[in-house]
Each structure stands twice: as structure tokens, then as C-alpha cells.
């Protein structure tokens, strides 16, 4: 099959091919960065200057504006990794393991921030920085899963082999998280018959929604931006690796 007779790739293959990915994302990065900055400016403006205190929470609602986006992203990023893992194992999509590898540290940071802001919110609200309830415990475990996956990526020399194995670990972790949440909630009913705080968190009246949504958008755009940049970096890194190998094979020919 010569270069002339190979059939034109359809849109999905064009998306899937690493080279094509580099091509079309090159034009996306800077606009996306600009949009992210704007979204954060708008979000912060709403969060601090254009919204009242919550009647229930008082000024602590402003912590919500950074807590909720990070909590949402900590789970959404794992969702991305889950889909990527399926892509690796089921369809052998060439970009899937790149996506998984790129997303893991991002998810870890968002989860850490969710825990950190959650603790700061918890202290004045419930009196303690930490509580072994279903939510906080599951989030902590999610962080451990992220860190384990990152460690696993780094432990492999062969990144392609790593991709399939990390995909398996990602899927197993995803199945496990609901079970953990269930078991921790059950465990809490043993030790705390009357739960003082509602696990769902406070209600969201409309005055809170605007800043909240604005910040959610800002953080999500940030994730999309960082994810794309990291994926590009990973593709380029693999290129560099194979070039180095090629050079080493050619030996002292220089």
C-alpha cells in the first residue's frame, strides 16, 4: 500500500491520529487560554464583588466557589480517565493512554484542592477540619487512587505497555469508588446515629448560582487547557523518545 493509494481518513481517524491531534490543537491552545483567563476574571468578580453573603452560610459561601468546582473536577477528571481507559482496552485508540496519562496529575491536584477547601469550609461550619464521613473519605481515597496511578505510570519503562495496565487499574478503581462510598456511609451509621451535618451540603439559591457556575466554567476550561497541553507534550515526548532510540541505533554514525 503506497502513500497514494491509502484511503483518506475519516474524521474520527483524523482525531485519533497523534499527528493530526497536534495539528488541530495547535490552533486551540491560545484561544482556550484566553477564554480561561476571562472566565476566571468574571468568576472571581462575581464571587467577591457581585454577590451577597449567603443567608445560611454567611461569607463562607465564597469558599464554596472554589470548593465545588474542584470537587466536581476531581470526579469529572476520573470520568475522563475512565473513558480513556475504555478507549485503550476496548478500541485500542492511539490517543487514549495519552489522555489518561495527561489527566492523572490534573485530577490529583483538583482532588487535593477539593480536600483542602473542604477542610477549610468544614472547620467553621462543623467545627472540625476533618470528618470520616462518606464524602470526605471517598475523596481522600480518590486522591490515593490518582497518586497510585501516577506512580504506576512512572514505574514503567515501556509506556505503551503501561497504558494497558494503567487502564485496567483505572477501571478497577472506578468500580471500587461507589463501593467505598457505600461502605463508608454504612460505617458511619454504626458510629454516628444522628448525623449532625447533611452530607449533601447546603442548598443553592439563585444568588449563589451565578458565581458558582462562573467558577465551574473557569475551572473546567482550565482543565481542558491543561489536558490538551499535556497531551501535546506527551505526544511530542514520545516522538523525542523514538528519535533518541533511532539515533542510538544508528550508533556512532555521526
Amino acid at each position, binding site marked *: 500500500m503506497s502513500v497514494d493509494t491509502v484511503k483518506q481518513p475519516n474524521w474520527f481517524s483524523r482525531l485519533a491520529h497523534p499527528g493530526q491531534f497536534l495539528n488541530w490543537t495547535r490552533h486551540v491552545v491560545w484561544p482556550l487560554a484566553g477564554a480561561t483567563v476571562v472566565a476566571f476574571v468574571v468568576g472571581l468578580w462575581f464571587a467577591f464583588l457581585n454577590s451577597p453573603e449567603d443567608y445560611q452560610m454567611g461569607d463562607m459561601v465564597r469558599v464554596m466557589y472554589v470548593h465545588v468546582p474542584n470537587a466536581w473536577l476531581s470526579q469529572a477528571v476520573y470520568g475522563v480517565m475512565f473513558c480513556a481507559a475504555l478507549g485503550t482496552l476496548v478500541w485500542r485508540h492511539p490517543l487514549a493512554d495519552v489522555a489518561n496519562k495527561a489527566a492523572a496529575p490534573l485530577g490529583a491536584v483538583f482532588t487535593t484542592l477539593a480536600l483542602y477547601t473542604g477542610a477549610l469550609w468544614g472547620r467553621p461550619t462543623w467545627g472540625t477540619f476533618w470528618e470520616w464521613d462518606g464524602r470526605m473519605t471517598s475523596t481522600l481515597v480518590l486522591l490515593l487512587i490518582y497518586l497510585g496511578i501516577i506512580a504506576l505510570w512512572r514505574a514503567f519503562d515501556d509506556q505503551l505497555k503501561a497504558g494497558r495496565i494503567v487502564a485496567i487499574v483505572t477501571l478497577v478503581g472506578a468500580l471500587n469508588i461507589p463501593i467505598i462510598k457505600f461502605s463508608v456511609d454504612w460505617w458511619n451509621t454504626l458510629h454516628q446515629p444522628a448525623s449532625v451535618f447533611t452530607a449533601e451540603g447546603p442548598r443553592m439559591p439563585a444568588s449563589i448560582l451565578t458565581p458558582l457556575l462562573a467558577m465551574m466554567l473557569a475551572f473546567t476550561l482550565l482543565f481542558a487547557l491543561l489536558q490538551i497541553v499535556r497531551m501535546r507534550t506527551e505526544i511530542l515526548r514520545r516522538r523525542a523518545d523514538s528519535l533518541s532510540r533511532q*539515533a542510538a541505533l544508528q550508533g556512532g554514525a555521526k
Partner: protein
Amino acid sequence: MIGDGMHVEFIAWAYAGVALLIFGLIGYVVWEARRVKERLAALDKAGIRRRSAETNS
């Protein structure tokens, strides 16, 4: 408005921590990208090219 409530410290610590980690993350991502690009540039200078690069563009 800012500074009204009793919890300014908590809010400040929260936003400070978020800013620290987020800017740290962005910095890391940028540094990493730069490092790989330098590596590719060095390889390119040394004359090592991809085999497909000859036929492609």
C-alpha cells in the same frame, strides 16, 4: 462585600491555597512542555529526523 464576615481568614487561606496549587500546576505543565520542545529541537539540530517527515510535508 469582602472583609465583612467573620471568616476572612478561612476564605483567604482557601483562595491562597487554590492559587498556589493552580499556578504551580500551570507552571509545571509549561515547564514540562518547554523541556520536551527543547529536547526535540536538540535532536533536530543533531540532524535526526523522523523518517515520515521526509515524505510528509
